Every structure is written in structure tokens, then in C-alpha cells.
């Protein structure tokens, strides 16, 4: 199978030098050189649990927003940190996202409102699955949208880190034929030194066998990635001076994505996720549970941006969540499962300082099924634009099968 790479190890090079290696092995053996050039990177952040887009990017110009959320609404901007931070005279940022405001002002940060999956499901599981597979309503899709992008753009220069997820298990978005690495931390990615070289070789052999199943394939990818990490040693790249990521697994993952990018290990797609958005009760307004999650969420994004500095010119970060939450607060000062939500797009090529997408309104006739924010941007058009303009992807039809997308439907968040 040509999509499986071989080990970057001496035996591979030996085969090459004997002239018996197939072409793809030659490619792989020399791939390390390709890694040393800078490349474009897309970072996807999934907010699992359905983030309340309306309290994240607050439509303070809507009377209905305040009428329907008597106890959890974020007040309209009034200059302090106990109210929304004005963006454009209609929308305001939740005050806990204050670290993102400078990025908005310097136009590195764009927002797409009323974005999401057109499928009507309000099941966390199904909605996440549909978004990650990239095929809303179709459960039989086996691979994820990120993986299909890798499949449709085979790269002879690819390193083991072309696609990497900073999670303990591989997300659905990256599932599929193309290799992808999942790691919970760079430092712990490898065999313990106590294992010894002989045992390490033993494992490598066991999983390097010709068996084509998911275990063996994953094993091969793991050892290949370990070899590669040894050479590049991303742990040398510590955060830029003065940059502090929020503590916790989410801040840690973004910090490490930045390390990998700075180490030029060839990351084209990175993924991480952050949970805790399912606030059915006591969601809070300016302060409270959502505010706490947003503080960490925005703090890490801002730290990532500062950490990468100039490198952000080649990076696009896009955030997504499975659906939004009811416009009306429920009986427990929380919100139930809704429909459209909000995405952030961050990067050098972003048309920032703008809320993109058509605002559907919160009037009684304007709500989806009479209760939720209606959807005006299909998440596939947002991701399609990010792939197309951020990574130069051509075949969006293969990435999002069954979706009639194309530049005409892009929300316009990136410079063409």
C-alpha cells in the first residue's frame, strides 16, 4: 500500500543504496530533508460539548438576546471588564476572551457567526461524528475530513508529522488511510530508555511486519515518528519570552503544537480538543462556568499566537464545536442543545477584525425550529476555504463528498 511509509532507518537507506528499493521508499528515506523547509499549517481546535456561541461572541445589538437570557446574558459593552468587549458596534467578545481583543484589533483574528453543521441532530455524539467525518447525516463514512485531505494531496516529502493530534487517542477527524500521529506529550512519546535498544528493535520488528491491520499500521507510524523526533528534538523550542500558556491539557497541547511548528518537523495539519462546554445549568454570564472555560480557551489561543510570532504568517487556526445552544436560557440558568454556533479563525492570512457570515437574527420568526440560532454558514464551507486558501487544496469534493461547496460559498475569512 503506497500510503504506508517505511521506517527511516538504515535498513531502508541500505535498500536504496542497493538499488532495489521501490520509488516510494526512496522518497520516504529522504523525507527528512523536506521537513526542514517551512510549510503551511492548519490547526484545528474542537470544542467538545457544544459551546454557547451567543455568550462567546455576544450579539449585544439584539434586544431578543437580553429578553431570552434574563440571568446569563453578557451586558452590552460599557468600557469595563464586566460587560462584552465591543467588536463592531453589534457584536461583543465575552470579557473572559480579553486576550483575543488585541488580535482582533491587529486583524489577525476573524470570527464566523451562525456557523455549524446543517444536520438537525442535537446529540453530542452524532453531531461531533458528523463534523469530524465531514459528512453531516451520513454515519457510514469511515474516515475523517482531515484524513481525506491528506489522502487527496499525497506528498512525497511528507514526514511522520504531516498530521498530528495532541490527544491521547486519534480523533475521528484524522481517522483513515493516511498516516497520522496522536501524542499526549512530546516528552513521553517514545519507549522508556530502560527498555534498551534490543527490546526497542524487537517491538519495531513485531509491528513492522507485513500485516495490514490498524495495529500494525499504527505501530509502524509510532516507530517512524520516534526516529524522527530523535533527529529534530522539538523540546529545544520553548515558548517565546513572556509567553505563558494557561495550565492544563489544552494549554499544553497548543504549546506543543507550537513547538512542533517551530521545529519544522513538517506539520501540515494539527488537531487538539478542549471539553467542558455543556452548560445545562449555572452557565453564568460575565463570570461563571462558561467564563472560566473561555478564559482558558482564549488565553491559550493568544499565547499560541504570540509564541509563534512571525511564523503565524504560515499558520491558520480554526475552531469548531458540534452545535450551539438554545437562545433562551433554560430553567437552571443554563442552556440546552441548540443549532448554529461560532468559530474563530486566527492567522497571518486571515481577513481579521471582521465578523463573517450572515447574521440570521434572533427574532421569533428567525430562530431555527423556533428555539435556536439559525445556521447561515455550513462548517464545510469554512473548512473548505481554510484547506483551499490555507493549504492550497484543490479537491474539496473528495474531502467533503456530497457537499456542493466551492469558492462561491466560502465565508471569505482568508485572503485569496
Amino acid at each position, binding site marked *: 500500500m503506497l500510503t504506508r511509509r517505511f521506517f527511516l532507518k538504515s535498513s531502508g537507506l541500505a535498500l536504496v543504496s542497493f538499488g532495489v528499493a521501490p520509488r516510494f521508499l526512496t522518497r520516504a528515506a529522504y523525507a527528512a530533508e523536506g521537513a526542514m523547509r517551512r510549510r503551511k499549517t492548519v490547526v484545528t481546535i474542537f470544542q467538545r460539548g457544544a459551546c454557547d456561541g451567543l455568550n462567546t461572541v455576544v450579539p449585544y445589538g439584539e434586544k431578543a438576546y437580553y429578553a431570552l437570557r434574563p440571568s446569563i446574558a453578557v451586558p452590552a459593552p460599557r468600557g469595563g471588564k464586566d460587560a462584552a468587549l465591543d467588536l463592531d458596534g453589534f457584536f461583543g467578545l465575552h470579557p473572559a476572551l480579553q486576550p483575543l481583543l488585541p488580535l482582533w484589533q491587529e486583524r489577525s483574528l476573524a470570527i464566523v457567526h451562525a456557523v455549524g453543521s446543517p444536520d438537525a*441532530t442535537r446529540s453530542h455524539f452524532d453531531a461531533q461524528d458528523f463534523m469530524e467525518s465531514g459528512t453531516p447525516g451520513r454515519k457510514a463514512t469511515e474516515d475523517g475530513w482531515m484524513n481525506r485531505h491528506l489522502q487527496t494531496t499525497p506528498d512525497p516529502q511528507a514526514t511522520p508529522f504531516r498530521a498530528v493530534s495532541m490527544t491521547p487517542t486519534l480523533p475521528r477527524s484524522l481517522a483513515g488511510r493516511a498516516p497520522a500521529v496522536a501524542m499526549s506529550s512530546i516528552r513521553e512519546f517514545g*519507549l522508556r530508555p530502560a527498555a534498551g535498544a534490543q*527490546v526497542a528493535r524487537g517491538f519495531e520488528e513485531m509491528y513492522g*511486519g507485513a500485516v495490514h491491520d490498524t495495529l500494525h499500521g*499504527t505501530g509502524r507510524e509510532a516507530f517512524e515518528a520516534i526516529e524522527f523526533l530523535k533527529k529534530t528534538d522539538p523540546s529545544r523550542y520553548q515558548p517565546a519570552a513572556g509567553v505563558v500558556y494557561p495550565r492544563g491539557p489544552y494549554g499544553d497541547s497548543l504549546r506543543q503544537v507550537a513547538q512542533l511548528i517551530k521545529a519544522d518537523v513538517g506539520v501540515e495539519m494539527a488537531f487538539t480538543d478542549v471539553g467542558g462546554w455543556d452548560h445545562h*445549568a449555572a452557565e453564568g454570564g460575565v463570570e461563571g462556568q462558561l467564563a472560566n472555560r473561555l478564559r482558558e480557551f482564549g488565553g491559550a489561543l493568544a499565547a499560541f499566537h504570540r509564541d509563534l510570532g512571525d511564523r503565524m504568517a504560515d499558520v491558520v487556526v480554526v475552531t469548531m464545536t458540534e452545535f450551539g445552544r438554545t437562545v433562551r436560557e433554560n*430553567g437552571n440558568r443554563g442552556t440546552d442543545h441548540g443549532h448554529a454556533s461560532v468559530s474563530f479563525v486566527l492567522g497571518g492570512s486571515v481577513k481579521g477584525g471582521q465578523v463573517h457570515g450572515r447574521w440570521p437574527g434572533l427574532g421569533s420568526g428567525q430562530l431555527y425550529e423556533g428555539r435556536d440560532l439559525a445556521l447561515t454558514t455550513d462548517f464545510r464551507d469554512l473548512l473548505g476555504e481554510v484547506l483551499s486558501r490555507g493549504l492550497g487544496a484543490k479537491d474539496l469534493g473528495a474531502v467533503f463528498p456530497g457537499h456542493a461547496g466551492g469558492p462561491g460559498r466560502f465565508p471569505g475569512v482568508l485572503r485569496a
Partner: protein
Amino acid sequence: MRLRRSTAGRSAAALAIGLILLQPGTALAAPRPYEDAAVIHVLNRLAYGPRPGDVEKVKAMGLERWITEQLEPQRIPDPAVGPRLARLETAGLSSNELLKGYEVPRAAKREIAQKQAEMDSASEDSKREARRELMQKYGSQMRGTPRQVIAELQEAKVLRAVHSERQLDEVLVDFWLNHFNVYAQKGPVKFLAGEYEREVLRPHAWGRFEDLLLATAESPAMLFYLDNWLSADPNARPAARGRRGRFGAAAGGGQPTMRRPAEGAPPGQGRKRGLNENYAREIMELHTLGVDGGYTQKDVTEVARCFTGWTIKGLRDERPEFHFEGRFHDNGDKVVLGQTIKAGGQEEGRKVIHLLATHPATARFISTKLVRKFVADEPPAALVDKASAVFKRTDGDIREVVRAIVTSPEFLGPAYRNAKVKTPLEFVVSAARASGALVDDPIDLAKRIAAMGMPLYMQQPPTGYKDTAEAWVSTSGLLARLNFALDLAGGRIVGVRIDTTKLAGGAAEGAAAATALAARLVPQGLSDSTRKTIDGETDLSPARMAGLVLGSPEFQRR
């Protein structure tokens, strides 16, 4: 020794076993020989893998008899577990005792919150330090910490899985715990989860599904986790200011039930309550019908209305229990799945539970999940049909549904052997069992399971953990497994004793040791390529060799 029979012969034998076992009352003939492979398969699926000697023991007693016994776990003596659990201070304590002894006192929480607010602009580190100081100040009033409670929940689970003789019971309770998932980190759930497992799941794990469903619906753990304790008719009279009196006459002796603001809520002044859909949705999507079970958003809202007033009383006084609060109940008629449910107070919720538990979609959904757990990621349709039919015929008798699955030719036959990839829990526990490890302190084992992406009692979303291979096979997960295998065999897991020399049959190294280790640790046999690797490394010490074998692709499967 492995018997060499034709495939047809094997399936016929399996079919015969199935037929015999389908009739529990039948007098069993003398045990007959089975292939080792069948015995190993059964131990891999109905138990957390074989321990040294288990295959021989099961063969000696007869595979049918072993399965029949496991289906009646209360009759199996289980002497190894009690003394081990006794070392865990909090295992077996009631929610009341845990809340009293291990919850951070309210005064401490208040002081911490106040202090943190004062320190608003201070660094995270100094805030943490301030918190630590205050916790020390209040520590003398506490028997232990909330963290200890969670750790010991995890430890108890690992201990039972490794050492209990009632293996199928442990496997099935784990199935239900995952099916009716609760998240220990949400509010007081960590103090409720032990009782939830002990008094809600275990007593009903083998009973009628409807009873199990009702018991979970009425459990403080589930009521809190999925927010139903807060759900009320939006037109219900707002509660009075401050510390309110009893709600109606029904609440006997308890303190006000819904006074305690959930985490992060602003202090309560007489506030309006209302409907919360969380539980209503998940009981249909995850607990009964399945996401494609044919319900609508309207059904979700109607079910939520039926369950208004199902709440918890006594949380503030550390005596949480189920309570139906009539004043919060929506007294209109409802229509659920096309059926009218007349206004009837607490009865409405019971009717919904009956409706859902006896719905054909539920029979299919539960059967599919059980077949996936025991047989294959892609459940064979015929077996799902059979299990659902048993579910319907027996009014949801879980024991009979499980019996139908685990005595079926599909399960016992060769087709699905080694077809499942172990979850982190299954991998870690089966490695400890295979190597004959003695677990004195399971904390390190629990931590390793967590590091592989499966922290026990800590799955936040209500979906529970996935039970399919693709969810658990990843580069990082695999490396964590290899490292664990090496650490376990090398004696580097704290609290776990292991004797690899004994496992190697006394041989110090060399081909004999390698062969003995492979046969003991992976009795189902190694693939040719793994075998070749092992044969090429015979100069490794037994510990390293054992690590290599436990890390092999074959040991990742069951």
C-alpha cells in the same frame, strides 16, 4: 494441546454447546474436551483474560459449567477481593459518610472563593498557593480529600477486575457503568458514584432492564450528572428567599432540596426555575432507544416535562436521596412517542421509563451494545436479532440476554476469536492477570489506564467510552501500552508484585524461557512474525522477554 478439527466440525461442536447452554436446567453430561482456543476465547471475553492455570481449571470443570456459574455470580465465593478492598479507606462508605468526611467544608470553599476574588490580578501560582494554605487550615476537619475518593473508586475497580472470581460480573458491571455513565468530577458526583455502583448498578446488573433503568433514574448520581435534579415546570412558584422551608408535605425530614446552587451559580435569591432537557435527551439517545430510535425534539421536551420534580433532597445535609417534588412538576398532559401520558405526578416518569424500557428499539439497542462488547465491533446481525428477541420475550431479563449471547454459536465459534482490540482497562488488567501479578496497591495501574486515555469514572460526556478498536488504536496509545508492558514485567509498577522467572518456567533465559513465557502470557498463540522476533531475541532476560510478549500485537487483542 490444540485439537485439529475441520472448521465444520468446530462449528457443529459450538452449536451443540450453544444448544445445551440455552437450557440452564438441563443436567450436564460429564465435561467434554474443548479446544484450548475456545476456553481462552471465553476467558478473554467473559473475564479480563486468563491467569496462569485458568485454562486448565476451566477445562477440568467444563466450559459450560464455568459459563453457567459466571452467569450466577452471587453463588461464586470471592475470598480474594474483600481483604484487598478493605485496605481502601473510602471503598464501601455511603454517600453520606463521604460527603461528611471528604468534601471540602463549605466554610473553606467560601473562604477560598473570597480569597481568590481578592487576589483577582495575582498570578495563578500565588492563587494556587493561597488555596493550598487554606486547605491545610481546614484539613484537620476532613478525614481525607475529594481526590482520594476518586482515586479509590478507580483502585477498587482495578482490584476487582484483577482479583475477583466473579469475572463476568465485573465485565457486565463495567458495561453498565459505561452505559449509564456518570462523571466523578462534576460537583458531588465523586461522593455519589460509589453508592451508585454498589446499590444501583450491581444489584440490577443481572435483573430486569426496566428496574435498572428506574434505579439509575432515581439515583442522586444520575440526577445530578444529567441535571434533572434542577428541572422544573417553568410556571412553578419561585422558591422563597434564603433558606427555604420544606417543599410540600411529601418531603419527609429532608432539608430544602434545590437550594444548593450548582457550581458557579450566582447566590440564590428567589429564582425562577424551568425545564432542563439534558436527562430527557440522554435517557432516550444513550440509555434506551439509541440515537436512531425514532424520537424527536418534541419527544425530548415532553419527556423532560414528565421528569420535572424528580430531584435530590438532602444534598446540603450530606444525606442525598431521591425525592419527587410535586411543586416543581409540570401537571399538564404529555405526548411521548405518540402516546398520551395523562397528568399523574411521579407516575408519569415511571410510565416513561416503562415505555422506553419495553420499546422494541431499546431491545435492539441494548442487544447491539452487548453483542459489540462480547462478540465483535461489527455485531453479527443474526445474533443481535436473537438477543433482541430474548430481550423482548423475557421482558428485558438481562441475564437471559447475556446468556443467549455468550452461549451462541457465533460467540463460541472460531469466527470472532481475537477480533476485539483491548481497551486500556482490559489491556492493563489482562496483563496483570496473565502475568500472575499480585496487586497490593492498584494506584499505579489506575494511573496507567488513565494515561492511555481512559481515566475511570472520569469520562465527561454521557456517551461513556467507545467499545470499538479504532477508538483505542493510536500511536500514543500504543506506545503507552508498550511502556506499560515493559514496566510491569520489569517490576517497575508500584504496588504490583510479579515473578517473571517463575513465569519463564524457571529458565533464566534462552529459547526455553521464551517459549514458556509466550505460552503462558499469550496462550492463544503468537503470529509467525512475532514468533520470529521472539526467537531472535532469546538472550533477553525473562523480564524483558515478558515485556516484549505483553507488548506484542497479539496481546493487544482478545
